[in-house]
């Protein structure tokens, strides 16, 4: 794509999300979502083949439906409150419709079906933008309406998302689908604590974005989209295998890596609000996620998979320069001792 046009489209995506995050008028928020959606379709379709066309179409249809539902919720809110300012939602119906719309945008169960298929159909870089940047806008709206969300619906969606994210990823070998199911599960964790402490949602989002960025960059670095091709990294850059191990263990939420911090804080917040069974169940279901991460580490870092002679061809190509990979890796694995600093968020 022409670099100038690509930059314009990328800036439109950024601008759309910024408009969503910074507006106080509901109509502007809807406009921001639409701008974001329309501009990201060309980015998803960077390579022009039927698979990306299908993925982009699915993405467009689901997100457009969600935007329409969002518009309906906005109108019902307008009808009952008489004003367009974004504060809490004044009508339970509008709240439920808005929560469902935002869940569709995020990929929470039962609206998660588009996430694996869309992520699989697009290139790694587009998948990166899809799973990290696109989550910021709906999450910011959820943050702002959090006092008025129906707790039952949100918690049901959260727990089901963690379940689906765990179980769905078990049978996958394609890395992008694995990242998609991991995203569904992490969204579940984020929305579970939304009503109790939205700050922790933002913390989880931050750490999730760091870890997903790291993972995708490691995948891009070794140009691998399947488990099999990831298992050949020991041939080319053995150091990457160690980094993949550390980042995957961090995503699974193992102490002492920084992926444990959001889980720990969320469990703490939930138990402070006297729900004990819920965080126990959530924590145990996160182990399903850990299982397929472990499977990836087994084939990549902890064993040396047999590789054919073709793999030695990879030595001929220059390694891609990945910006910001070292700081990202450090941040996605070593942040746990900084947990006491979270007290500044109160």
């Amino acid at each position, binding site marked *: 794509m022409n670099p100038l046009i690509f930059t314009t489209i990328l800036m439109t995506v950024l601008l759309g999300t910024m408009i969503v995050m910074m507006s106080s008028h509901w109509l502007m928020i809807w406009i921001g979502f639409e701008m974001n959606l329309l501009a990201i379709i060309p980015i998803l379709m960077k390579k022009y083949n039927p698979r990306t066309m299908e993925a982009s179409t699915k993405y467009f249809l689901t997100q457009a439906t969600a935007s329409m539902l969002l518009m309906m919720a906005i109108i019902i809110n307008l009808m009952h409150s008489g004003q367009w300012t974004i504060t809490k939602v004044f009508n339970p119906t509008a709240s439920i419709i808005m929560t469902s719309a935002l869940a569709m945008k995020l990929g929470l169960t039962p609206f998660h079906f588009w996430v694996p298929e869309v992520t699989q159909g697009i290139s790694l870089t587009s998948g990166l933008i899809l799973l990290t940047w696109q989550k910021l806008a709906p999450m910011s709206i959820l943050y702002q309406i959090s006092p008025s969300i129906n707790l039952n619906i949100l918690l049901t969606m959260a727990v089901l998302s963690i379940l689906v994210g765990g179980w769905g990823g078990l049978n996958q070998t394609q890395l992008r689908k694995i990242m998609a199911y991991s995203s569904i599960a992490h969204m579940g964790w984020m929305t579970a604590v939304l009503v109790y402490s939205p700050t922790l949602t933002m913390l989880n989002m931050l750490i999730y974005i760091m870890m997903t960025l790291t993972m995708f960059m490691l995948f891009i670095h070794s140009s691998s989209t399947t488990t099999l091709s990831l298992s050949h990294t020991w041939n080319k850059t053995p150091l990457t295998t160690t980094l993949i191990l550390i980042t995957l263990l961090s995503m699974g939420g193992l102490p002492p890596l920084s992926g*444990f911090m959001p889980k720990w804080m969320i469990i*703490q917040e939930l138990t402070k609000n006297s729900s*004990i069974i819920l965080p126990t169940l959530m924590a*145990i279901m996160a*182990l399903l996620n850990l299982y397929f991460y472990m499977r990836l580490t087994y084939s990549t870092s*902890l064993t040396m998979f047999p590789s054919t002679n073709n793999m030695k061809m990879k030595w001929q190509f220059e390694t891609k320069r990945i910006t910001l990979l070292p700081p990202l890796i450090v941040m996605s694995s070593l942040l746990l001792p900084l947990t006491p600093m979270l007290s500044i968020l109160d």
Partner: protein
Amino acid sequence: MLKIIIPTIMLMPLTWLSKKNMIWINTTTYSLLISLISLSLLNQPSNNSLNFSLMFFSDPLSAPLLVLTTWLLPLMLMASQHHLSKEPLIRKKLYITMLTMLQTFLIMTFTATELISFYILFEATLVPTLIIITRWGNQTERLNAGLYFLFYTLMGSLPLLVALISIQNLTGSLNFLLIQYWNQALPDSWSNIFLWLACMMAFMVKMPLYGLHLWLPKAHVEAPIAGSMVLAAILLKLGGYGMLRITTMLNPQTSFMAYPFLMLSLWGMIMTSSICLRQTDLKSLIAYSSVSHMALVIVAVLIQTPWSYMGATALMIAHGLTSSMLFCLANSNYERTHSRTMILARGLQTLLPLMAAWWLLASLTNLALPPSINLIGELFVVMSSFSWSNITIILMGANITITALYSLYMLITTQRGKYTHHINSIKPSFTRENALMALHMTPLLLLSLNPKIILGFTY
């Protein structure tokens, strides 16, 4: 405590910056020096704990375990030299880094005051151990072994995290030094029963309790020698240590909640000892004998009498040294014949008489011969369980007999009789191996002169 933790962390740069022919010398020497520092902790002046800071403390229970941990690192390094000798330099350094990281986490776990900090470090010990087992083990079964190890422990310990956080919300602090003074009886309710279960199951899986012990034979057998040593000697004791710490907060539910686990342990120790009599795999035999000894520790911790606590602590230290020594001996066989089958290398006394002397001493301490500290531990446990209920003497007596049976079975199979014709060309024992066994045996024998230091805080 930083005087132990910082040198241990600095062992990592030492490894990476050493020259090729100096890595083993440097790391073994410095880790021996660190263990000498930790010996000073054994001087516990009063009944209270020695408090180094708000975050670290050591009391008569954790000091012997800490000394055992730091003592074991040089021994692990000595034991790993042979099987790593053919690996490239970076992999050797990675291995030593994993061992050092594990050591750091273990030292911090045993001296943590805050229970959440204890939890995080307890979980943190899983990662280096998993990497050691899965990356450097020798058979394909090691992958399954690593998964079992990780997931059994995590399933048990996630409820512990929730329980610790809810206790912190209820009582305001999880600092262990404070809790021992604040202790009040837990009210009797269903949710407190689940709290008890949540707190104890993590340690039960780690010990391991008989019904949850499936990870242990896999992990011990598939791990390389240093992994087996640290698993058997220290990581199992983490469970015992955690149970000893957390039962102070869990009264009075323990009086009735402990019954199922007592039954499982009492029956389990007989079962696992009996299985040892039918093992063909040497490391598997030692692994099941670990389960059996740890079942005694579980019984001791759950009946909560002063003598049983003394027995539990002594048994943990004694078993740590003994089973680590047995794994080293099994590994010396494995390095020569590359097989763990017992009958494949028998009659070794004729070929390696000095090693046979170490086999004899290790088997004798394993079956708790007087006056070793193994006997002191087992005897205290048997006595206190007899006073708790007279009938347990039958099971305990049967267990001691069966332990003697399989220890002698192991000794006689590997050492006595005519040697097999295909091992007449094995290499003689290295000085390193003899030194390793001597360094295991000497503390064990010397402690029988003054067992007071390992008897824990109820002495």
